[in-house]
């Protein structure tokens, strides 16, 4: 069977792998450095953005998504999309609970060691109302 390898495998040069790894290390250093600068609310966004860039490097080059059949990229994207749907729709609930009715409840004290040891702690409801 001569046509066993109808398409040639994508063999990247060693240099590409080394450069990608170097970039990953550099961005690791950057993300650590950035986390010590106070950007207000943007620290989390910066961290996620850098992580996503690193993730793209790993998936595109180390996992060959950039060169391989596009269906693998599609499968991968579907995974990210549905994790996004899961988190987004769940947080539509968890972040918006007191919108119409006041449902701020006292925590249940019952046999929770935590509350017995730290009575001075503020309740979760307090912290949430502080956000608004």
């Amino acid at each position: 069977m001569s046509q066993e390898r109808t398409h040639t495998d994508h063999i990247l040069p060693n240099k590409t792998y080394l450069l990608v790894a170097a970039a990953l290390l550099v961005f690791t250093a950057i993300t650590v450095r950035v986390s010590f600068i106070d950007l207000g609310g943007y620290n989390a966004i910066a961290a996620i953005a850098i992580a996503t860039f690193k993730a793209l490097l790993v998936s595109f080059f180390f996992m060959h998504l950039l060169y391989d059949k596009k269906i693998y990229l599609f499968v991968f994207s579907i995974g990210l999309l549905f994790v996004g749907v899961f988190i987004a729709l769940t947080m539509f609930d968890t972040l918006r609970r007191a919108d119409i009715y006041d449902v701020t409840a006292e925590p249940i004290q019952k046999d929770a060691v935590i509350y017995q040891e730290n009575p001075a702690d503020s309740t979760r409801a307090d912290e949430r109302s502080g956000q608004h």
Partner: protein
Amino acid sequence: MSLAHNHPAYLAHHFSDMEQQKASAKLGMWIFLLTEILLFGGLFCAYAVFRSWNPQMFLNAHKHLNVILGTVNTAVLISSSLTMALAIRSLQVDKKRPAIIFLLLTLAFAATFLVIKYFEYAHKIHLGQLPGKFYTYTGIEGTNPHIFFSIYFAMTGLHGLHILVGMIVISWVLVNTVKDKYSSEYYTPVENAGLYWHLVDLIWIYLFPLLYLIG
């Protein structure tokens, strides 16, 4: 069986050629990785919900994680991903000896990661920074700091388990490489082990800033 002639040993009977078998294995692997993404997705969702409820507590609690060890571990995992990619490349060009060396290096990096993780865990257990009802530490201000450690241990624990499974898989392809089972014609198991390993790295790339670098 009309295909019996000139049929490579590694081609299963229900595939018509290597191309079909290889593409099937790879698609199967990617779908498996998809399930892994959704599996961790659940934990990321829990993280997002509790962090949005207790932003200050997360900020206070994360300072008790060791950024230096976390950074070193990130570098270790990136290096292991590099050696894994190079091992596959070596097989693609039929260089068996470098492939074996790169696979051994990958295993060594993975072990390093786990050893460092062990020291981190030991330190936390010593201080009582433990999940849920085992939490006895008193030095963190804010509501329910034990939740942070519940999530920390669940996420890094599940990730560590994946590292362990990855080491087993890599050891297995290493043994088969030594036994000359792979060549540029057939290295699908190594390639799939590599995909798995890169995904484990990729998840850590998110875990690291979310847990160690909250700001």
